[in-house]
C-alpha cells in the first residue's frame, strides 16, 4: 500500500450523496422538523446531481479503485440509474402522506439518501467487505424507515421484525463470507473468480460458504424461502416507505446478487445455478399461490414482488449474458410498474384515513376513471399480458431460460404467471365490474398523479414503439460489462 490517493472518479456520485447527506443532516438539526420540505427537495437535487455525474463523469468503462474494492462499469451505471430513479420517485410521492400522518420529519429524506448511498456501494462492490458495508448501510436505513411511524404499533412491529430477521440474514451472509475467505484465501471478487476457475472441484468450504452467502442475499431480495418478512413489513410500514422498499432496494439487491454470482463465482456456475433455479421456482410458486388469498393490497403487492423476484432470478439462473440482460430489462420494467401501483395505493384515502383493502377499490372506474385505468394498466402489466410493458420482461427472461436449456423452469414460470394473472385481473374486476364504493378523497398532491400518469404511459402499449428498443440496448450494454 502506498500513500497515494486512490482515483476518486468512480466514486464521485457516492461521495456527493455521502457528503450531501451529512450537510443536510446538519441543516435539519439546526432548523428542526419544519425543514422537511427543504431537506426533501435538496435530497432530490442531490440524487439528481449524483445521476448526472454518474452518466457524464463516471461513464460505462470498467474502472477499479480503492485497491480493487470498488468497481464501476456499465452494469453499475445502469442499475445505479434505476436505483436513483426509484429513490427519487419514492421520495417525491411521500410528502403528502407524511404530512397527513404527522411524520414529515427531516430524517426521512436523509435516511432515503443514505439507503440509496448504501445501494450504490452494494452495486459497485468488488470485494466482500465493500459488499457488507454497502448492504448494512442500506439495511440499517431501511430498518429505521420501516418504523418511521413510531406511534403506530404496526409500523414499529414492521421495523422490529425487519431488523431481527435482517440481522439474522446479515449473520448468515457474514458466516458465508468468512467460510469463503477461509477456504479460498481472498475476499476480492476478481481474485476469487480467477482462483475458483479451472477444472478441479472447488473446496467444500467454499461451496458451503457460497450457499450461506446466497441465503443472505436471497433474504435481501425476498426470495423464497427467505421471504417471510416481506408481507409483514410491506403491510406495516407507512405506504411511501413500502413504495420505496418495493422499488430501489429490490433493484440494488438483485444487482448485487448478479454481481456476486457472475463476478465472484463464475467458475462455480453449475453449483449455484441449481440453487438459483430452486429459489426462483419456489418464489414464483409462493408469489402466485399465496397472493390468491390476500385481501390487503399492500400484502398482495408483497407476494406479487416475491413472485416477480422469482421471474427476475430466472434470468440469473440462465447465467448467460442474455440472461443478465433479460434480468435488467425485467427489473427496469418492474420498477415502473411497482412505483405506479404504490402511487395508486397512496391515493386510496377516505375521510377516515388510508384504506388498504382490495374491496375498497370497488367500482373505482365509476368514481375515478383515470386512476382505475392507471391501475388496470399496472395490473395487466404485472400479469405480463401482451400489449403492456410487463410482457417484454417476461419475454426476455423466459427466452433466456429456454436458450440456456432450462425449459422446465420456463414452463413453471409461465404457468405460475397464469395463476398470478388471476389475482391481478381480480383487482381489475373489483374496479370495473363491481358496484361503486364511496369515492376516494384527493389531496395527495400533483406529484403522485404525475408519477401514476408517467408510469402508466411507460407501461401502456406506447412503450412498444418508443421505449423498449432503447431499454433493451441499454440493458445489453450493461450486461456485456460483466466478466464471462
Amino acid at each position: 500500500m502506498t500513500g497515494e490517493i486512490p482515483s476518486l472518479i468512480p466514486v464521485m456520485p457516492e461521495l456527493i450523496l455521502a457528503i450531501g447527506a451529512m450537510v443536510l443532516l446538519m441543516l435539519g438539526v439546526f432548523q428542526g422538523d419544519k425543514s422537511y420540505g427543504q431537506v426533501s427537495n435538496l435530497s432530490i437535487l442531490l440524487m439528481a446531481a449524483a445521476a448526472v455525474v454518474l452518466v457524464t463523469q463516471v461513464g460505462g468503462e470498467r474502472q477499479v479503485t480503492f485497491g480493487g474494492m470498488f468497481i464501476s462499469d456499465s452494469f453499475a451505471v445502469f442499475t445505479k440509474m434505476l436505483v436513483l430513479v426509484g429513490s427519487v420517485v419514492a421520495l417525491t410521492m411521500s410528502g403528502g402522506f407524511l404530512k397527513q400522518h404527522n411524520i414529515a420529519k427531516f430524517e426521512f429524506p436523509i435516511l432515503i439518501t443514505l439507503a440509496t448511498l448504501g445501494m450504490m456501494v452494494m452495486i459497485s462492490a468488488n470485494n466482500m467487505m465493500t459488499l457488507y458495508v454497502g448492504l448494512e448501510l442500506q439495511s440499517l436505513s431501511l430498518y429505521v424507515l420501516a418504523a418511521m411511524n413510531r406511534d403506530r404499533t404496526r409500523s414499529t412491529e414492521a421495523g422490529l421484525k425487519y431488523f431481527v430477521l435482517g440481522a439474522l440474514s446479515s449473520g448468515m451472509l457474514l458466516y458465508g463470507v468468512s467460510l469463503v475467505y477461509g477456504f479460498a484465501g481472498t475476499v476480492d471478487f476478481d481474485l476469487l473468480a480467477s482462483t475458483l476457475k479451472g477444472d478441479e472441484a472447488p473446496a467444500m468450504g467454499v461451496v458451503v460458504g457460497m450457499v450461506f452467502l446466497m441465503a443472505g442475499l436471497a433474504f435481501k431480495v425476498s426470495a423464497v424461502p427467505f421471504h417471510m418478512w416481506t408481507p409483514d413489513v410491506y403491510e406495516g410500514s407507512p405506504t411511501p416507505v413500502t413504495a420505496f422498499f418495493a422499488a430501489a432496494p429490490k433493484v440494488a439487491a438483485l444487482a448485487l446478487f448478479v454481481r456476486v454470482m457472475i463476478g465472484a463465482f463464475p467458475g462455480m456456475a453449475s453449483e449455484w445455478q441449481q440453487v438459483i433455479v430452486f429459489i426462483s421456482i419456489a418464489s414464483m410458486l409462493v408469489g402466485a399461490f399465496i397472493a390468491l388469498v390476500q385481501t390487503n393490497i399492500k400484502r398482495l403487492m408483497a407476494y406479487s414482488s416475491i413472485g416477480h423476484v422469482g421471474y427476475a432470478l430466472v434470468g440469473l439462473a440462465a447465467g448467460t449474458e442474455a440472461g443478465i440482460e433479460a434480468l435488467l430489462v425485467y427489473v427496469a420494467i418492474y420498477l415502473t410498474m411497482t412505483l405506479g401501483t404504490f402511487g395508486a395505493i397512496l391515493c386510496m384515502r377516505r375521510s377516515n384515513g388510508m384504506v388498504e383493502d382490495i374491496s375498497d377499490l370497488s367500482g373505482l372506474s365509476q368514481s375515478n376513471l383515470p386512476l382505475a385505468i392507471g391501475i388496470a394498466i399496472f395490473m395487466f402489466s404485472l400479469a405480463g399480458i401482451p400489449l403492456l410493458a410487463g410482457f417484454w420482461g417476461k419475454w426476455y427472461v423466459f427466452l433466456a431460460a429456454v436458450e440456456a436449456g432450462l425449459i422446465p423452469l420456463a414452463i413453471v414460470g409461465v404457468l405460475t404467471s397464469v395463476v398470478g394473472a388471476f389475482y391481478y385481473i381480480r383487482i381489475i374486476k373489483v374496479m370495473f365490474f363491481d358496484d361503486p364504493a364511496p369515492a376516494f378523497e384527493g389531496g395527495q398532491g400533483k406529484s403522485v398523479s404525475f408519477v401514476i400518469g408517467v408510469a402508466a404511459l411507460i407501461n401502456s402499449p406506447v412503450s412498444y414503439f418508443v421505449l423498449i428498443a432503447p431499454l433493451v440496448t441499454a440493458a445489453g450494454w450493461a450486461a456485456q460489462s460483466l466478466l464471462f
Partner: protein
Amino acid sequence: MNFLIDNLLSLMMLAPLIGAGFIMFIRHQDKEIEKRNIRSVALFTTVVTFVMSIFLWIGFDSTSADFQFVERYRWVGDISYYVGVDGISMLFVVLTAFLMPIVVLASWESVEKRVKEYMIAFLLLETLMIGVFSALDIFLFYVFFEGGLIPMYLLIGVWGGVNRIYAAFKFFLYTLLGSVLMLVAVFYMYVETGTTDIPMLMNHHFDGDIQNWLWLAFFASFAVKMPMWPVHTWLPDAHVQAPTGGSVILAGVLLKMGGYGFLRFSLPMFPDATEHFAWLVFALSIIAIVYTSLVALVQEDIKKLIAYSSVAHMGFVTIGIFILNANGIEGAIFTMLSHGIVSGALFLCVGVIYDRLHTREISRYGGLAVNMKIYATIFVIFSMASVGLPGTSGFIGEFLVLNGSYAYDSWVAFGAATGVVLGAAYMLYLVRRLVFGELDKDDVKAMPDLSLREKIIFLPLLIVVFWMGIYPNSFLDPIHVSVENLIQTEFSSAAEHAEGVSTSAAAAR
C-alpha cells in the same frame, strides 16, 4: 394512392385506433347527444375499415401463394413489424372488417351504459383481430393473439349478463393458460432458428421429437381458442354472458383464430407431427361433434344452444384441416367464414328478441312467426344456413369437408356426417319452439317486428349467406392457390395418397 395500397394492412389496424382516440375526446353536456356522436364515430370508423378491406380483396392476387401487401420494419432485436396476407388469411381480415359495423349497429340501442368505453374496447379489439390474421412475425402474432384478451375480458365483465364475472374470469384464464405453453414453444423455435419470421420458420425443418412437443404446445393454445372438446367449457359461459356484440365477435372472429393458427403454424411448421397427431384431432373432433350436438339438443337457453352448436361446427373445421387434402382445408376455411357470418347472425337474432323480452329462455317465446313475420323468416334462413341447407353458405363448407374426409377415411367422414344430422335436429327443434308453435304469451304477442335499423343489420348478412351458397367461387378462388401450395410443400405424400384413394374410388364406381 400507392401509399394507401402499400400500407393497407397497417392503415386497417390504425383506423380503429384513430377512431377510438377520437371517441375518447367526445364530450357534450347532453348525454344523449354524446352517446349518439360516439356511436356515429364508431360506425363511421368501422365502415371505413371495411371499405379498406374491400380494396384488400380487390387488390389481392388470387393466382399467387405468396404473402401480399407485405410491410416490414425492423423493431427490437430480431423482432420486426412484419405483416402481410395470403389466401388463407385474407378473407379472415375481410370477415373481421365486415362484422364490425354490424356489431356497432347491433349495440346501438342495447348498450346504454358506458357507451364510450364500450366502443373504444370494440375498436381496439378490431385492431387486434386484424393484427392476428395479418401478423407474419411470431412475436407480433402472439402480442395480438393474447392482447385481444384484455378488451374481451372487459367487454364480458362490464356489459355482460348476470353471471358475467365468472364467465369473464373463465374466458381469460382458460385462454391464457393455453397460450403460455405456446409461448414457451415460440421461445424454443426462436432459439433454434434465430428468427421470429413466420415464412422463414415455415421453411425450417424441426427434428421429429421436438416437432411433436412444439405441436402439442401450439395445440394447447389453439384447441382452447377453437374450442375443442374437452376444453370448450369456457365458450358457453362466455357466449351466454357476453353482450350481443361481444357474442357476435366471439363466435364470428375469435373462434376462427384457433383454426387459423392450425393452418398458419401447426400444419406448415410441424408437418410430421401434424400427420402423427391427426388421429387425436379426429377423435376429439368427432367426440365434440356428437357430444356437443347432443348437449345442444337439451339446452333451455338460446345463446347456450348456439354456443354448443359452434363447438360442433368447429369440430367440423378441425377435421377438415387435419385430413390434409385440398377439399378438406378449403372446406374448413369456408366453414369458418360461413360460421362467422351465420353464427354471428344467429346471435344477432337472439339479441333482437332479448332486447324486447330480456330473457334467453326458449320456453318463454313461441309463435313468433305470427307477430314477427320478417324476423321469423330471417331466423329460419340463418338456422337453415347453420344446418347446411344447399343454397346457403353452410352447405358448401360441409360438403367440401365431408368430401375431403371421405377421400381420407370413410369412418372419419361417418363421424363428421353425424354432425350434420344432429345439427339439423337441434336447430329445427329450436326453430319449432321459438318461431312456430302457439303464440299464447301476452308479452310475446306485444313484441314489435324488426325496426329499420335491425333490417339494415341483417340485410348484408343475408346477401353474403346466399352469395357464399350460390357462387362460392368468389370466396374459394383466393383460398385455393395458398392451400394447394401448403399441401404441395408439406404434405405431398399425403396428398398423393388421398389422390390415389379418390381415383380408386372412382374406378370402383
